[in-house]
């Protein structure tokens, strides 16, 4: 096996842009305001009448509410968020799903579509065969249905686009890097599909040929994937990692641009720092042009 080794090199200093000054950045213990008229939001606490930051990040003000958004954190789910998660436990009438949030999420038996249509009644039989549908280690895509008081999420898969995930690659990035969009399911032009979970779990899979209704999302195709598809998926994975390393927000366009910029390089070379930098630079450039 060929191993690529390199000596330590001086870390590049990120040039400090003046625009950054406009952001209100705070570190834990910083007093945000002594004005009592504000409401305390996430990432803050009251220290003797003073609103103080408890995390390092950017201050966000919405009317009277002050929050500090940390740079990196576990997933704080909100209703409607698309998540990708892994089943960790099968319990009575519910599955526990690990979704990179601070507590495992819950997927109730009543919140899933079982084969046989939406209106099927759940019987005791179903409770006993839960493991046939989803078992420990399975990956699913789902949507946040509600948030419990302790911060745990309740998920549902009551749509055909959600459900068990078959063959593909999971990439984990920081949740803050996934840009909120209308849809998080994309069939990318390069020949693969992507689910950008709000929780930072990104699922890459070959674009399915036709919608397989009867399977209800619980059937796993084990047909071999063509080499071409696999190469595309691998390249996408590395591109996403490269973007994440340079803290570029992830959404369909950025991923696609990055994919295109990476074309001149071999897949395995994408993660080399200098290549990574070059690709990301190009991507940023293109994104800026698009905005401009």
């Amino acid at each position, binding site marked *: 096996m060929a191993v690529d080794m390199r000596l330590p090199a001086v870390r590049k200093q990120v040039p400090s842009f003046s625009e950054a000054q406009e952001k209100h950045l705070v570190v834990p*213990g910083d007093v945000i305001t002594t004005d009592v008229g504000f409401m305390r939001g996430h990432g803050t606490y009251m220290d003797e009448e003073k609103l103080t930051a408890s995390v390092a990040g950017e201050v966000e003000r919405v009317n009277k509410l002050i929050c500090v958004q940390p*740079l990196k954190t576990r997933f704080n789910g909100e209703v409607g968020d698309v998540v990708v998660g892994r089943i960790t436990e099968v319990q009575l009438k519910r599955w526990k799903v690990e979704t990179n949030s601070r507590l495992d999420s819950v997927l109730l038996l009543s919140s899933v579509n079982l084969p046989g249509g939406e209106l099927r009644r759940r019987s005791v039989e179903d409770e006993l065969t839960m493991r046939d549908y989803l078992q420990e280690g399975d990956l699913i895509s789902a949507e946040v249905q509600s948030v419990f008081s*302790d911060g745990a999420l309740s998920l549902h898969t009551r749509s055909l686009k959600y459900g068990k995930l078959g063959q593909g690659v999971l990439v984990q990035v920081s949740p803050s890097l996934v840009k909120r969009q209308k849809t998080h399911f994309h069939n990318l032009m390069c020949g693969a599909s992507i689910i950008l979970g709000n929780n930072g779990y990104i699922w890459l899979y070959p674009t399915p040929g036709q919608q397989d209704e009867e399977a209800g999302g619980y059937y796993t195709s084990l047909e071999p994937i063509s080499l071409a598809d696999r190469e595309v998926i691998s390249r996408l994975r590395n591109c996403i990692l490269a973007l994440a390393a340079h*803290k570029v927000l992830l959404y369909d366009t950025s991923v696609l641009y990055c994919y295109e910029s990476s074309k001149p390089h071999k897949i395995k070379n994408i993660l080399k720092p200098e290549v990574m930098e070059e690709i990301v630079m190009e991507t940023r450039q293109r994104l800026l042009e698009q905005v401009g």
Partner: protein
Amino acid sequence: MAGLELLSDQGYRLDGRKPSELRKVQARMGIFTRADGSAYIEQGNTKALAVVYGPHEVRGSRSKTLHDRAVINCQYSMATFSTAERKRRPHGDRKSSEMSLHLKQTFEAAILTQLYPRSQIDIYVKILQSDGGNYSACVNAATLAVIDAGIPIRDYVCACSAGFVEDTPLVDLCHAEETGSGTAVALALLPRGGQIALLQMDARLHQDHLDPVMEAAMTACRSLGQVLDGVVRQHLQEVSILTGE
């Protein structure tokens, strides 16, 4: 000749520092991508690595779960190559367990654990090279890692060691000073509020000397706090520049 002269008449220590001077501190945050938070710190020749996972569902025995706040789980270990003689056991010996416990106590005082009921936060620290002040390097590294993980804390936790030689308190002891000076005090401080998160002493020190030693250690902690603050702000700016379009 008996021992080393830890403090010369001219007021210089073995390595050329003055009694109240810290060693050179260098630190970086976010060095691992897979962990929720991570940091690396060098205090002189003492090098420590800290990794934070969580908050997450309590793994292992459910019984540990606390219903009003998060559980903090610390593990301290020393690399086998970190000391002058190779260590046989990197962790799990009595000293490491004690150190783990101290770290746990320190961070329970700082992290706003009540925000995360029923969850768990893991803090793993490893000494890569040891030259005195292991505890303080660990605490400082762990603070950075916790901040990197976006876990809310009251304030930085800064730790520094201090000793007492020839009626002068010395801060940030190196290994030779730690072994030669008799008493070493390790102090963890929340600098803004001035609360002491942990104070540990492994040998006897006369009551009269405790105050100056603690005062020196606290001053040192405050200066260390400023260094850490600089590191965090630098990191914050770099990342926010990259993410912000």
